[in-house]
């Protein structure tokens, strides 16, 4: 299954998931890359505070081309949550 980003590019679920995880890894210096998976909790495992999580919004806009509402980002509890919310915000399946 594939979905379109806001610019009309097609993404597979796996490709989008890897892109989101790359963004989270870049914002988590010092953490072993393999430790960050879909199950990783943003607040408890990575120690992000309420506002730090907003740092994912801009790279998601610029690299995955999906504009998530900030409140949707604030509500994300895990990396998998973010992946699901980006996927849900993409256009319909091919």
């Amino acid at each position: 299954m594939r979905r379109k980003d806001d610019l009309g590019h097609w993404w597979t679920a796996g490709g989008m998931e890897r892109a989101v995880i790359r963004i989270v890894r870049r914002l988590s210096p010092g953490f072993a890359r393999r430790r960050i998976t879909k199950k990783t909790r943003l607040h408890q495992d990575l120690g992000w505070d309420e506002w730090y999580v907003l740092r994912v919004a801009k790279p998601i806009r610029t690299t995955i081309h999906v504009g998530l509402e900030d409140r949707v980002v604030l509500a994300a509890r895990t990396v998998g949550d973010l992946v699901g919310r980006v996927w849900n915000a993409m256009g319909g399946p091919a």
Partner: protein
Amino acid sequence: MLGALATSAAAGQPAPIGRWELLIGHSYSSARALMQPATLTLEKVEGAPLYSVLDVGALVRGSIAARSWLETGLRARAGSARTPSQRVFGAMARVYRELDPVLVAVGGEYQADGGFDVHALDATAELTPLGGLPGLGTWVSPAVHLRWRPWIGAAVGDGVRPYGRLSADWVQGRLEAGVEESLWLVSGSGRSFVKGDVSLRLVAGISVTISGELGRSPPTWEHTGRAGLGLGFRLAPGD
């Protein structure tokens, strides 16, 4: 393979978000304060009645645009152990705008003392960097669970009061500790208020909390200092 990945994305369906959400904590006065548990402390001194100390704030949050949201709330710093002039009741509304690399908040707040003798109505504007320095908004390292966050701003009411706020949190398992220092410039002189807490989480949202405060805070700027042990309660999306 693609089907399996698509299924995995679908399986991780995030919980739907309501149009509005309710948060309850120590106070809405800052994100740090809201994440501190609301506390009820009872103090008994021989020969005196039972005293109470209550610190609680409630906040309702909802979207107004893709990169903006609105918060409105009430708070109380009360209890019979505090004199009426040391009690604070407040209400506020503020709008946040994410402008990565900073977050900006503008709003208005009404505050009164316990006897409603002193009132203050202020417009506020403040900002914080989202991150970018070690420990700013995120743990210093995977081994050191310490983080900090600064805010700078100004309140405009009967005069202009620039202020700064610095908070720090440390988390280790069920134990959390935090401190928040606020500094105001009022009519050319500095005022400071610091509060801190150490909480041991019993179950989600409920903790035993030691809390303390020292300094002068609006609207009366009366000097206060106290520490106590009580029951903490917090309602936040993560709890």
